[in-house]
């Protein structure tokens, strides 16, 4: 087909195919609040609540909440085709560096002492499961848009999902030491962010 013919067809199609608008800020805010609530309820139902308060302390919970909100705000900027902010354009490098840090920490003696591999595996299973709903929710909204970088959008979706999962699971996590718990959760969130980036690379392509 010639390009001029295509233009004619697209022009004719203008009134017949109302395009789907990208999800707005309000949509993302409602989604974030509802999935945070749902995930906390799910975590409490599946794993119970810690009698001694959140593992990693209140500061840890606040950190995960801040990470989730930041991820959502960056995702809102990323959802439409516009030049990405500097931080986002460097996100793949940042993500890879964090993943390497996790691997380095796990192979180092002090890292092993801080985060036992069995703890990390346990957190990966539990937080990974809890992150499924937030990831699906935010993915639905991202797919209504057209992110300039599907990889970075996927990473942000993973960061949001992992942070919400960690936030919810910190109310149930059996790890006693707050620093160890926070470190294990942080590594899990980094891994989920990486997985999200890989999934998003294909899922958010348009």
């Amino acid at each position, binding site marked *: 087909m010639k390009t001029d013919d295509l*233009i004619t067809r697209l022009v004719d199609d203008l009134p017949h195919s109302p395009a789907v608008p990208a999800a707005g800020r309000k949509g993302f805010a409602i989604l974030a609040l509802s999935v945070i609530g749902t995930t906390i309820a799910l975590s409490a139902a599946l794993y119970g609540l810690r009698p001694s308060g959140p593992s990693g302390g209140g500061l840890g919970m606040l950190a995960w909440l801040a990470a989730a909100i930041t991820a959502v705000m960056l995702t809102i900027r990323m959802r439409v085709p516009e030049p990405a902010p500097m931080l986002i354009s460097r996100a793949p490098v940042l993500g890879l560096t964090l993943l390497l840090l996790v691997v380095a920490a796990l192979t180092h003696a002090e890292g092993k002492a801080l985060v036992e591999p069995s703890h990390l595996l346990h957190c990966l299973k539990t937080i990974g499961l809890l992150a499924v709903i937030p990831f699906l929710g935010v993915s639905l909204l991202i797919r209504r848009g057209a992110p300039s970088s599907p990889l970075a959008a996927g990473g942000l979706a993973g960061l949001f999902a992992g942070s919400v999962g960690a936030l919810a699971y910190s109310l149930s996590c059996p790890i006693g030491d707050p620093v160890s718990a926070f470190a294990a959760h942080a590594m899990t969130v980094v891994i989920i962010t990486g997985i999200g980036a890989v999934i998003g690379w294909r899922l958010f392509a348009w």
Partner: protein
Amino acid sequence: MEDRECRWYAWMTAARSGDKASYNHFLTDVADRVRRHARRRLARSGFPLDEVEDIVQEALVAVHTKRETWDPGRPIAPWVDAIIRYKTLDALRRIGREAAKATNFDRAAENLPAAGHEQSSDLADLDRHIGALPTREQGVVAALGLDGISAAKCAERFGISETAVRVAFHRGLARLARLADTAPTQDRDAQDLRRKGLRPQRLSPQRLSPQGLNQ
């Protein structure tokens, strides 16, 4: 830049309220910009320029289907440019992958029908399948796969870049594989054509000439 922004903004705003003429102007102007950008990027990467119109069309379809992602409260030029960049990069990756797949000509040539006791019928099928390929791919597949000349010589013979030869060869082989899979249907089609007094498309020396390939 400001002129373009004003023009596009006015056209797109009118198009959103159903003005087809404005939308036509907008898409035509965007197509010109994509064409220039794609031509520059393809030339810089050493890829064949005949991919330009594909990229233009992909970008136009993306602009059309994603038009609601543009917020009228924001400038339109960065939005269009982001779509153009995304679609051009996507196309460059695709072309690069196709060129890389076609790098090992010897191995690919081995995939062509092997000699055996049904050699003459295989060659006749091969001749017919090659005849069904687009003109440029016909010449490149015949030159590389059958005559066994090098990619560089083939590029020189047909007056196209070596990358273009690789892309055409890879596409030709992929198309041959598909044709071979649907051979019984093709045979039926050929019989139908003969019954109607028409000749199925054949490989002709004229279509294999460098002039034919540059059509």
